[in-house]
């Protein structure tokens, strides 16, 4: 079954507004989460990560929130710019006991397309 999913497949925002992209995960054992941005024709670009012992982490213009109670992850982008237009993926890592714990492989969601209107 699908372990990571996204509530909104598309999101359209006005330039300068804040964006919130949501992600639901189903495996409570997941211990590491990453948000990636993917522009057309390019590979996933790392934005920000968070570990399961935290509930919030801030970067430059981005904030990731982790709610383990409801298994929810969100990415907040402040003052969204046209250059933020892309597909955003959340990804999780589930520890795998057969391999001596987590080896780092990521399980990706389908992605949310963010469109920023000038």
């Amino acid at each position, binding site marked *: 079954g699908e372990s990571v999913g996204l509530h909104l497949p598309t999101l359209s925002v006005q330039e300068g507004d804040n964006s919130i992209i949501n992600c639901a995960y189903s495996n409570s054992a997941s211990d590491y989460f990453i948000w990636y941005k993917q522009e057309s024709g390019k*590979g996933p670009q790392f934005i920000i990560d968070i570990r399961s012992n935290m509930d919030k982490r801030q970067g430059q213009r981005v904030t990731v929130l982790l709610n383990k109670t409801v298994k929810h992850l969100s990415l907040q982008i402040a003052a969204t710019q046209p250059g933020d237009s892309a597909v955003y993926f959340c990804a999780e890592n589930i520890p*795998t006991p057969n391999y001596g714990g987590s080896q*780092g492989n*990521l399980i990706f969601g389908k992605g949310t397309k963010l469109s920023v209107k000038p």
Partner: protein
Amino acid sequence: EPEVTQTPSHQVTQMGQEVILRCVPISNHLYFYWYRQILGQKVEFLVSFYNNEISEKSEIFDDQFSVERPDGSNFTLKIRSTKLEDSAMYFCASSVFKNQPQHFGDGTRLSIL
């Protein structure tokens, strides 16, 4: 800024042929990965590699697939006897260690005819 590089950017191959996709991970990274993305679908994990051996592999990574680090810089994915359903974007990634940010290349688009 150091980056993961992949070659070729696009590979077209006849069904049944073998292909080798190449990657140069970031130089101080110890963990290497291959993922694939079929058009319109999620990015899927294939295999992770550390200390010259496979750390973990998914169900997708069957006997048709193999990985190798032939020298100190390259990391390759070989697909034997390719099938139509192997058509996808193949991404290489690397990280300093496990559970550290994985940095991705721009991928190789593999088209099987």
